């Protein structure tokens, strides 16, 4: 099914941290996980127009329209993000529905400067119709078809969803929060069966660009669990690219902000474990 509109949180025209080369990144609104370590929790939920943000807005850029929906005046908004701070639902009044053609025009403008585009979020596979339409449009446009198309995902999508993306997707970056299902549930509020299956499936199709392991102190960063995870991944594909990321409290919700930042020395120990497993392509952040 084609979708001519996507629910967009924001775009970044130049990003050096969302896949290979310089990339245009779309952050789609909405996620089906509820990770305690989420760095942009305002992308989790859809705005329900409760209006808690309307009055605090110092620019008076927010108001209710005739259908009692919160709308924003882009010309007045200064992106001070106070609406995001006061939002009780991990959402934002600033996300919006955008037309596919308008996204394509933005990409056309920057295309000489980029290696490709990445859809992130939020969880982009929740809008798989839009993502597939976007990738398809890029691959069939003479000016854009050289761009690579990547998805940055929590891995929760089923094979049937990936099957729709695979013909037009060059690579996926999958977060694996924990190999152990109970730890995964604690960290994300969701089971990891689909994630593990997505990693296997994408690796099989050679579209797994990177697996990301976010190390949250005291939660998923014991040497033992990292070693098990590394072995599990190694059995799937020993050439897999692994990115080991140390948790930083920046951006996380107040109730989780007392989780300490990852200790670089400990992170280096975990990196050694992963290298010793046999992986050669390991990036530590």
């Amino acid at each position, binding site marked *: 099914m084609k979708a001519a509109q996507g629910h967009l949180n924001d775009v970044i025209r*130049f990003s*050096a*941290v969302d896949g*290979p*080369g*310089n*990339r245009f990144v779309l952050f789609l609104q909405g996620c089906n996980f509820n990770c305690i370590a989420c760095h942009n929790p305002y992308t989790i939920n859809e705005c329900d127009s409760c209006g808690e943000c309307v009055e605090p807005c110092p620019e008076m850029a927010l108001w209710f329209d005739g259908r009692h929906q919160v709308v924003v005046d882009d010309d007045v908004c200064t992106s001070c993000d106070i609406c995001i701070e006061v939002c009780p639902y991990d959402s934002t009044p600033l996300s919006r529905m955008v037309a596919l053609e308008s996204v394509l025009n933005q990409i056309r403008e920057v295309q000489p400067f*980029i290696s490709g585009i990445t859809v992130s979020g939020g969880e982009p596979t929740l809008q798989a119709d839009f993502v597939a339409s976007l990738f398809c449009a890029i691959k069939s446009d003479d000016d854009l078809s050289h761009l690579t198309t990547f998805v940055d995902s929590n891995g929760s999508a089923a094979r049937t969803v990936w099957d729709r993306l695979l013909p037009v997707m060059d690579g996926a970056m999958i977060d694996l929060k924990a190999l152990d299902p109970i730890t995964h549930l604690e960290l994300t509020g969701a089971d990891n069966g689909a994630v593990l299956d997505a990693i296997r499936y994408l690796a099989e199709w050679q579209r797994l660009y990177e697996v990301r392991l976010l190390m949250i102190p005291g939660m998923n960063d014991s040497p033992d669990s990292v070693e098990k995870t590394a072995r599990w991944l190694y059995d799937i594909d020993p050439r897999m690219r692994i990115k080991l990321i140390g948790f930083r409290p920046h951006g996380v919700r107040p109730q989780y902000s007392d989780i300490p930042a990852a200790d670089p020395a400990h992170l280096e120990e975990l990196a050694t474990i992963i290298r010793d497993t046999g992986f050669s392509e390991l*990036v530590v*952040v």
Partner: protein
Amino acid sequence: MNMEEFRASARSIVNDPQLTYPQRKHYLAGLAESALEYPPLSDAAREALNKRIICDIFEGPAPYRARYILPDYAKALTNGSAHLELEPAKDLDEALNFLLIMYTQVPSITGYPVYLGDLDKILAPYVADVADDALYKKLRLFWIALDRILPDAFVHTDLGPDDSRITRTVLRIERELLQIVPNLTLKVDPERTPDDLILDAVKTVFEVGKPHFVNHPLMVSDLGEEYAAVSCYNSLKVGGGSHTLNRLNLKEVALLHQGDVESFLEETLAAYVELNAELMEARIRYLVEEAKFFEHDFLAVEGLIDLDRFSAMFGIYGLAEAVDILMEASGKEGRYGHGEEANQLSYRITSRISELVAARPLPYCEGNRGRAFLHSQSGIDSDLDVTAGTRIPIGDEPEMFDHIKAVAPHHRLFQSGVSDIFHVEDPVRRNPTAMVDIIRAAFREGMRDFTFNLASNGFIRITGYLVRKCDIEGFDEAGARHGSTALAAGSVKNSHIMDRNVKRVLSRESSPRAPE
């Protein structure tokens, strides 16, 4: 200046504990020159010079050497030099020895050569039978010698656009030695320069803040195949150079203008362009006709430079302020770099200057068909509250895409150099390909030069040259911009900054000393 003041100035240089012996000699020479009278100027030009609306960058009132000289080193190595009593070089050792000797005899405004040759090309004939490890060892020692013998941040060499064993070895040595000297440019040709070489150069920037990248095809179309970027951001003809660089302060011109934008472009701007050209003409004539530089210097006598490949550089700066002042005077919103109307006005201003400069004949400028080269001048340390060249003010730059789009249209006009510095964040270290994407696209957009800086390496770019952060530790950025001025004003108690060794490397071009 009366004799008493002259003696006091000389004494303050002789006794200055911050200056090394060669630095004292250099400044004493400048002081002596400053005691001479200026070449004849009209009253209007004299007044504009006194007010620094037009500026000779303190080159001195009696020019006796061209500002930038680009000797044909390849020719020297092939023919030998009678003046230097050197035979043609037959192997790499002889070539490196020849060059080190010759560098000490190449004049420039700074007293040090601003151009060392395109070293990958001029050394190529001598390396065929040199093994990789021997090449590395010899070049490494040569590189150390350059930094110690020529301690000025404006000593410059060029690499590329083709890949070579020498090019790669130089980049490796740069990453290892982390020296300020030499300043470095990589010529990039979309057809000839492989991604992997640009990538290697990008990784070198991460470590040591250089090279700059230049758009080779654009340079060749303006200057011919035999050109080089020298000093910093000055692109000129090899075997030639620039007699002088005089610059027009567009902010000051805009401030004294009364009237609309049209009359600014047609009258006020045109009048001051003429005054700056008059200043250039007077200085060029003195150099060529009175000091007779081209009649006696061995480089000219031996055909290593040719007056016909020289021109002079017409510099501008303060475009950002000029645009903002004119916008405000017209009651319009928007400022340079942040609004389409302001940006369009900036293009009108530089296009108009380009027309005016192209219509003004200058003597001894056959290197550019009897006209000056236009140059976006990147500032000197004493500039306050005025932005370098055609740059967007520091701290006010929009995101990189908008930044490139705003400044790129200026670049084609400035044959002898233009620069914008892009600051990138540390995570790009893990993804250097992103910079390769941007550099290639910036040149497709028409940029002439692309320079970027990483916040986390040990170097800081000031106007275009590098200083080591450890050399200015304890000074905030504003302090560092004043270079020697700030140091002079500072207490000798901070002697770890003033330590002779620490200030061994100077940046003379950016810190010209005005006679006090």
